[in-house]
């Protein structure tokens, strides 16, 4: 659909704002509806739109399968790492209190980092799913 003029121009206009909106949902998880999972899905939606309009090959160039796969693991590592950090600092697994001097701040930062991990993993998994499902029925060439 790359040749589709209107779709191409409008998508180019929209994609940055979709991504920014996803990050807004990510960062404001404590204040309103939102959080890591929703943010990840919206962020991936920007890539899905990009892939639909500009083609799967271009999407693979922008978000290589290896990098996206690594991001799935990175998000999980951030999540688990926060838990272990709490453990090392004298709490239990996934206890946020000890992460900062003030337990309230600790909770705040802990949740934010955990949500970031969730967001990265969800976005990366969604992009991976799109790439592998969209690849079905691909002409066997290139």
């Amino acid at each position: 659909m790359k040749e589709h003029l209107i779709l191409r121009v409008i998508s180019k206009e929209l994609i940055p704002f979709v991504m920014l909106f996803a990050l807004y949902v990510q960062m404001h998880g404590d204040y309103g509806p939102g959080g890591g999972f929703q943010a990840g899905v919206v962020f991936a939606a920007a890539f899905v739109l990009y892939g639909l309009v500009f083609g799967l090959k271009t999407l693979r160039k922008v978000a290589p399968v290896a990098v996206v796969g690594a991001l799935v693991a990175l998000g999980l590592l951030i999540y688990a790492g926060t838990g272990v950090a709490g453990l090392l600092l004298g709490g239990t697994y996934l206890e946020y209190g000890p992460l900062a001097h003030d337990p309230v701040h600790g909770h705040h930062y802990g949740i934010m980092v955990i949500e970031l991990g969730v967001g990265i993993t969800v976005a990366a998994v969604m992009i991976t799913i799109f790439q592998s499902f969209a690849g079905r029925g691909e002409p066997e060439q290139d």
Partner: protein
Amino acid sequence: MSPQFVIVAIAILATMGLAVSRAVVGPTVFDRILAANTFGTKTVLLIAVVGYLTGRPDFLDLALVYALINFIGVIAALKFIKFGHFADHRSESNR
């Protein structure tokens, strides 16, 4: 409860019902996608109005997300009925 929001919500719901009936009747696949698109944009409005009706304008974030997903969904559905799959096509000559 403010009556104007109730009236608007009912009007939107009625239109959504009409859109669903069009989606069921068809007859072509494009009619159905058009009806689904209309249904989607009306859902966005409904979320916004219901947010005000219940005094929780936080819902506006959800309305934005829904508008976005609706657009991407229509484009995806179009691409799918056109090519039968999402992969790159050898002859993408659809200007």
